[in-house]
């Protein structure tokens, strides 16, 4: 068994934005009972002891936690590398300076599009101009700036503009990440999945920009899962590299695994080390023993680990099947059908998007 390198700390699921591609769980209301500062500090110390090097502070919007700088300082004291994943709403000059002083290593700001109106529409709230202002502050304070844009049917045609904007902001790195279909993105998948023609155009733009910006701006491109021949090596293997702690203290091998019908593990009940080593949740898909055919005898089984368990579950109802994204999967036609639908001439790309609620109120009272 390996020790994990990375901890994804989802500090809160509250968020001022309501992106339809959000990967947070649909039952946001179940996560109101957030860990306290002291509880997070204990989790960080346990993670460090377990071998974690990197801490990703995410959410929801992690800036909504007043104790964010305190948690960063704690992580730095433990020697962890700290990475903030933020919508940047609430990243004022004062807040940024606090985080800088606390030793935050890296900031990733998400934007929704280079066009202010489209960006605000996708975010569900006026936010574009605050993001631009925050990006400027990040650069001014001397951080490396990574701009993240989640790509989908509504904004993927803007890739050239997005890259121009990133250049204008003097971003050091841009992450263009095709949507992965979990949580709210799963609910909105039909309206989010781009067509093959859209992807090909976008990828040509990315290739040209990489050439042009070599040495100045790094462009990371996260492949569109459904269009790939092989699945992604999800989380670098189940219970192998990473772990996630959700706002209420649940511990997961992957942030999407809340959807799986598996026994829970919680920092309220056990130390991280025991959860990592012994919990049924972390053990069930670790390694290759659980694998069905065709993975079991496939030479790629140690490369992609049979793909994503959460995706297998969402698409087939069984988390222990080969990820249907893989063209060798007996369930691949489920993905092929979605892709075919996304490429139908008649499809206008309209479709209805359900925004995720901001503060995780229950959808219906009661």
């Amino acid at each position, binding site marked *: 068994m390996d020790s994990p390198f990375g901890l994804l700390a989802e500090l809160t699921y509250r968020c001022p934005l309501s992106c339809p591609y959000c990967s947070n769980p649909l039952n946001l209301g179940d996560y109101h009972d957030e860990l306290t500062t002291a509880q997070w500090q204990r989790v960080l110390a346990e993670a460090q002891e377990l071998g974690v090097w990197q801490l990703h502070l995410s959410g929801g919007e992690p800036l909504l936690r007043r104790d964010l700088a305190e948690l960063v300082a704690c992580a730095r004291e433990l020697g962890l590398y700290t*990475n903030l994943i933020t919508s940047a709403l609430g990243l004022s000059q004062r807040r940024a300076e606090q985080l800088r002083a606390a030793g935050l290593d*890296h900031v990733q700001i998400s934007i929704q599009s280079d066009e202010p109106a489209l960006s605000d529409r996708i975010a569900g709230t006026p936010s574009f101009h605050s993001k631009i202002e925050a990006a400027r502050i990040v650069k001014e304070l001397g951080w490396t700036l990574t701009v993240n844009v989640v790509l989908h049917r509504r904004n993927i045609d803007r890739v050239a503009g997005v890259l121009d904007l990133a250049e204008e902001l003097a971003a050091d790195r841009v992450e263009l990440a095709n949507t992965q279909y979990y949580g709210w993105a799963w609910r909105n998948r039909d309206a989010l999945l781009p067509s093959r023609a859209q992807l090909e155009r976008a990828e040509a733009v990315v290739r040209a920009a990489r050439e042009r910006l070599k040495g100045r701006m790094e462009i990371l491109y996260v492949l569109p899962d459904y269009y790939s021949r092989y699945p992604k*090596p999800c989380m*670098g293997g189940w219970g192998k*590299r990473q772990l996630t702690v959700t706002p209420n203290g649940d511990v997961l091998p992957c942030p999407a695994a809340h959807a799986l019908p598996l026994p829970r593990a919680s920092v309220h009940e056990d130390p991280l080390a025991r959860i990592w080593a012994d919990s049924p949740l972390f053990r069930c898909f670790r390694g290759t023993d659980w694998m069905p055919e065709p993975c079991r005898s496939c030479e790629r089984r140690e490369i992609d680990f049979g793909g994503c368990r959460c995706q297998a579950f969402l698409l087939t109802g069984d988390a222990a099947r080969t990820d249907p994204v893989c063209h060798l999967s007996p369930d691949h036609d489920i993905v092929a059908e979605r892709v075919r639908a996304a490429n139908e001439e008649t499809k206008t790309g309209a479709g209805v998007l359900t925004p995720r609620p901001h503060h995780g109120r229950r959808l219906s009272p009661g």
Partner: protein
Amino acid sequence: MPSTRPTPSEKRTVGERGAAVESSSRPKPAPHIRLRFDSAREQHVLLGPESVVVLNHTGADILALCDGHHTVAEIVATLRERYDRVADDEVRHFLGRLTAKRYVVMDDG
């Protein structure tokens, strides 16, 4: 959070393709990269938002000298005093590969 999840860190060796390195340049870790010694694993690692690079002995020694003051030529000379067989090329290639990945930046001078 965006449905992209932080790219899982893989332990990497330093990649293949490198950038050109001048003797007079003064390398230092990029602002978002941190060099750390893990006492439990007895390993030097370079950490970034998506990267974990485990360094070997020589690699760690080279990085320790990348402080924005020493030039590449000086780093080579220092390592020569320490080890018998450190080729000039070896240091250059290593730094070139780190530079191409933006783990290391060069102050030219």
